[in-house]
C-alpha cells in the first residue's frame, strides 16, 4: 500500500467517524424537514404590510449583530416591556431621569441615560462635553465658536466618528497611549476610545484626569459579558456607552450612556426631547427606553456560562455537520473584547473545491431559507471607511448568538450540502 493510499484510508476512517458523530443531527433534520421548521417560525396574522408583502426575504442570521441585518432579535422580556410601556403617556424628561437613577444603581456609575444607540450616545456625549448645559451653546452647536471642541481619538478614527463630527467635534488622532499626552490641548473637550482592556484604559485615565478631560469608552458590542456594565465604572471611566440592539437584545434603536452625573446631565441637555438641541433627531421613545431597561435587567441576573454552553452547542452541531465533508476543517473560538460569542470558522481549500468563501456565502444567501454568514465583506461599510481599515482575512464564520433555536441544523445541513457539492463537482 502506498503512502498516499494509507493517507486516504486514514482520511476515510476519519470521515466515517465524523459522519457517525453527526448521525443524530441528520436524524433530527430528516424528521423535522427544513421547510416545516421555517414555516413554523413564520406566522402572519394581520392585514398590515408584512415582510413578505413588501418583497422582503427574512433570513437566518449566522453573521452576528450587524446593524444592517437588524442587530439582534429582541428578548421576550424586552417585547413585553416595550408593549407595556406603549399604553401610557409619561414625561420623557422624568423618564430619562428615572432611567438614569436605575442605571446608576445597577452599574455603580453616578448616572445614565438611554440613547438612540451607541452612535447616538457618542453624539450626545460629544455635544455634552462641548456645549455643557448652557442653552446658548446648546442652540449654537454644531457651530463651536468660542467652545472647546477637539476630540482626541485614542487608537485612531473609526466608522462611527461622524457621530462626533456632527456635533462640531474636531478629531485629533492619537494612535497609541504614548501619543495621548501630546494630543491634549486647551481646546480638548473629550477623549474617545474603543479600547476595553484595563491596562490601556487605566493608563489613559492617568493622563486625562491630570488634564481634566473626560474619557468616553465606546463599548458598543461589549455586552455580554455583563461585567463590562460595571467594570468601566469601577475603573473610573468618566462615561461609557453600549449599543442596545446588539448583544443586549434590547430595541435596535436604543443604546446606553453611563457615567458621571455632570456629564450625563449635559448629554441629556443636548438630546431629544429638547427642541433646538443638536441630538434632537436621535429620537428614542418610551417603548425603547423601557425595553432597554428590561434588557439590562435580564442581563443583570442571567447566567452567562449557561448561555455560552447553549451558544457553543449551536456551533458544535454545525461543526459536526460540515466536518462530514472531507477536506473541511473547523475551529471554534470566542473573540475577546467585543462580540464575545462562540464563533465557528470553517475552512476548506478554495482552489481544490472550486468554491471561494464569497461564492459559498452567496449560495447560502440565495438558498431557501436565506442564510447570512460572516465573511470579510461588510455590505454596510462606506468605501472610504473600508480603505481606512486594515482588511480582515476573508474567512467563512458562523456567529452563534443570533441563531434562533433549531436554525443551527438548517445552517449546518445547508453548508454541508454546498461544500459537499462543490467538492464532488471539482473532484
Amino acid at each position, binding site marked *: 500500500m502506498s503512502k498516499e493510499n494509507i493517507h486516504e484510508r486514514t482520511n476515510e476512517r476519519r470521515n466515517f467517524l465524523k459522519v457517525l458523530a453527526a448521525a443524530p443531527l441528520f436524524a433530527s433534520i430528516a424528521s423535522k424537514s427544513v421547510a416545516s421548521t421555517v414555516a413554523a*417560525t413564520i*406566522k402572519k*396574522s*394581520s392585514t*398590515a404590510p408584512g*415582510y413578505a408583502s*413588501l418583497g422582503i*426575504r427574512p*433570513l437566518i442570521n449566522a453573521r452576528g449583530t450587524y*446593524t*444592517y*441585518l*437588524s*442587530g439582534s*432579535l*429582541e428578548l421576550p422580556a424586552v*417585547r413585553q416591556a*416595550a*408593549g*407595556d*410601556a*406603549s*399604553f*401610557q*403617556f*409619561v*414625561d*420623557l424628561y422624568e423618564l430619562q431621569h*428615572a432611567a438614569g*437613577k*436605575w442605571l446608576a444603581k445597577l452599574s455603580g456609575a453616578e448616572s445614565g441615560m438611554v440613547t*438612540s444607540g451607541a*452612535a447616538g450616545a457618542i*453624539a450626545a456625549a460629544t455635544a455634552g462635553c462641548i456645549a455643557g448645559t448652557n*442653552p446658548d451653546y*446648546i442652540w*449654537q*452647536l*454644531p*457651530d463651536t465658536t468660542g467652545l472647546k471642541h477637539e476630540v482626541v481619538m485614542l487608537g485612531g478614527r473609526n466608522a*462611527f466618528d461622524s*457621530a462626533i*463630527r*456632527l456635533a462640531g467635534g474636531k478629531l485629533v488622532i492619537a494612535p497609541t497611549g504614548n501619543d495621548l499626552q501630546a494630543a491634549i490641548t486647551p481646546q480638548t473637550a473629550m477623549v474617545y476610545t474603543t479600547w476595553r482592556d484595563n491596562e490601556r484604559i487605566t493608563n489613559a485615565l492617568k493622563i486625562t484626569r491630570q488634564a481634566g478631560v473626560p474619557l468616553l469608552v465606546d463599548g458598543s458590542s461589549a455586552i455580554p459579558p455583563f461585567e463590562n456594565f460595571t467594570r468601566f465604572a469601577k475603573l473610573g471611566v468618566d462615561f461609557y456607552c453600549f449599543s442596545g440592539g446588539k448583544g443586549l437584545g434590547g430595541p*435596535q434603536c436604543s443604546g446606553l450612556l453611563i457615567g458621571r452625573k455632570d456629564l450625563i446631565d449635559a448629554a441629556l441637555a443636548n438630546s431629544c*426631547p*429638547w*427642541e*433646538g438641541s*443638536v441630538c*434632537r*433627531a*436621535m*429620537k428614542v421613545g418610551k*417603548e425603547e427606553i*423601557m425595553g432597554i431597561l428590561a434588557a439590562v435587567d435580564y442581563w443583570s441576573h442571567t447566567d452567562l456560562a449557561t448561555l455560552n454552553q447553549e451558544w457553543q452547542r449551536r456551533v458544535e452541531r454545525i461543526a459536526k455537520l460540515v466536518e462530514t465533508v472531507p477536506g473541511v476543517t473547523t475551529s471554534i473560538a470566542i473573540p475577546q473584547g467585543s462580540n464575545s460569542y462562540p464563533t465557528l470558522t470553517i475552512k476548506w481549500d478554495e482552489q481544490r473545491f472550486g468554491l471561494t468563501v464569497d461564492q459559498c456565502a452567496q449560495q447560502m444567501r440565495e438558498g431557501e431559507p436565506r442564510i447570512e454568514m460572516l465573511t470579510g465583506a*461588510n455590505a454596510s*461599510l462606506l468605501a*472610504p*471607511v473600508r480603505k481606512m481599515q486594515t482588511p480582515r482575512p476573508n474567512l467563512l464564520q458562523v456567529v452563534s448568538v443570533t441563531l434562533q433555536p433549531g436554525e443551527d441544523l438548517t445552517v449546518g445541513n445547508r453548508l454541508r450540502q454546498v461544500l459537499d457539492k462543490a467538492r464532488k463537482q471539482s473532484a
Partner: protein
Amino acid sequence: MSTELQISNGPNGRRSFMKLLAAAPLMATIHARGLAATVSSAVTSTAKRSFSDNCYTQIGVRPLINARGTWTYLCGSLPLSETRRGEEEASHFFVDLFELQAGAGRHLAKLSGAESGMITSGSAGAMAAAAAACIAGTDPKNVYQLPDTTGMKGEILMMGGRTLFDSALRLTGAKLILAKTVEDLPSALTSQTAMVYTTWRDERIEQILKITKPAGVPVLLDDAAGIPPFSNFTRYAKLGVDLYCFSGGKGMRGPQCAGVLLGRKDLVEAARYNCSPWEGSVCRPMKVGKEEIMGMLAAINYWATADLDALNKEWQGRVERIQKLVETVPGVTTDITVPKDGNSYPTLTVHWDEQKFGLTVAECDQQLRAGEPRIEVLTNSNPSGVLARIKDNDAARRRAERPNQLQIISMTMQPGEDLIVGNRLRQILGNARKKAS
C-alpha cells in the same frame, strides 16, 4: 355639587342653570362610575394600565392623562394597536435593513403617489437625511466627509426664517440662509444652494416651486404634524414637492421614534445613502429598527383607510363633554376650534377672569398636574424648548408673548379620560371661584 353652583344671580344664574342641566347626564355618569371606575374603564385595552400601579410607577415616574397634544416630551401619541402589532410581528425575524427600506419605499410610493420614500427616526431625522442627501448625494467620499462640506454645495435656504429644529439641518454641515418671504427667494438662491426648506403648506409652496424648479434646487417641505388629514400624504406629491416629511409619533400614532420622508427617487436614494445602517454616514445615530419601520407602515396603512369624519366626531365629542362640565362654573367660557396648519384636532379653549378667580392659567395647569391622576393641558409654557432658540425664531417669540390660555387637545386623550379632565377642571375652577368670592 349644588353648593358649588350658585345659580341665583339673574340672567347669569339662569345661564348657569341651563349649563348645569346640559352637564347633568355627564355628572351622573361620573358619580355612578366613581372616578376610580372611570379610570379603570378607560383602560379597556390592557389590564396593566392603572395610573397608580404600572411599569412607570415602579421606577418612580407618574404617567399622565395627555390633554396637551402630541408633544415629543410627553411621548407624542400612543401607538395604534395596528402599530403595536406591526412592531411585534416584525420583531421575530431578521431582515436586511437596506432591503427593508427599499421595500418600504416601494410601498410608500404606491400609497403616496411620490416616487419613493423611507422611514426615518422622526421628522428631525428626515430633515437631517434630506439635507445630507442634497449636499453629499451618493458619492461615498462625500457621504463620509460630512459634516465637512468642502467642495460641495452647502447652503440651505430657510423659507420664513429659522425653526426650532434647524439643528437637524446644521448637523449635516449645512449653512443656513434665510429668506423671509417668497419674494426674497430668487435673490437668496446661489450656486451653493443645496436645498430649500419650508414648513409652509399653503399656496406659497406652489410659488416656491415655480422658482426652485427652473433653478434645479430641491425643496423639502417639513409637515411634521400634518397628518391627519391623510390627504397631505398624497397632496404634496401631486404639487410636485421634491421631498416632504411627517413625524410618525404624532398624529399618525406610529412609533414615536419614527418618521416618513417621501419624494423623488434620486433624492430618497441619496437620503438612504447618508443614513443608518451605513457605517460612516452622518445620520447613522438616527437609528430606526425593523420594528419601527414595520410599525410605521402599519400606522400609515391604518390612515389610508381611516374614516377621519368619524374620528373627528369622536374627538369633538370628547372636548364637548369637557366643555359642558367646565361651563357649569359661572364665569367660565369656552370655545372649540380645529387649527388649520398642523395639529388639526378639535381643541377646547377655556377662559375665565384670572383676577376675579384668583387663579392664573399657570396655577390651574399646575393643579391639574399635581392632582391624581396627573393631567397635562396646553398652555404657553413649553418645557422642552431650549431657551436660547426663542430669540432666533419669530413664531416661538410670538407664542411666548401672546396672553397665556388653557387649552385641551382632544386627540391624545384616551376613551373615558375626557370625563376625568372635565370634572377635575370644573372642581379646580369652582373652588377658585368660591374662595375668591
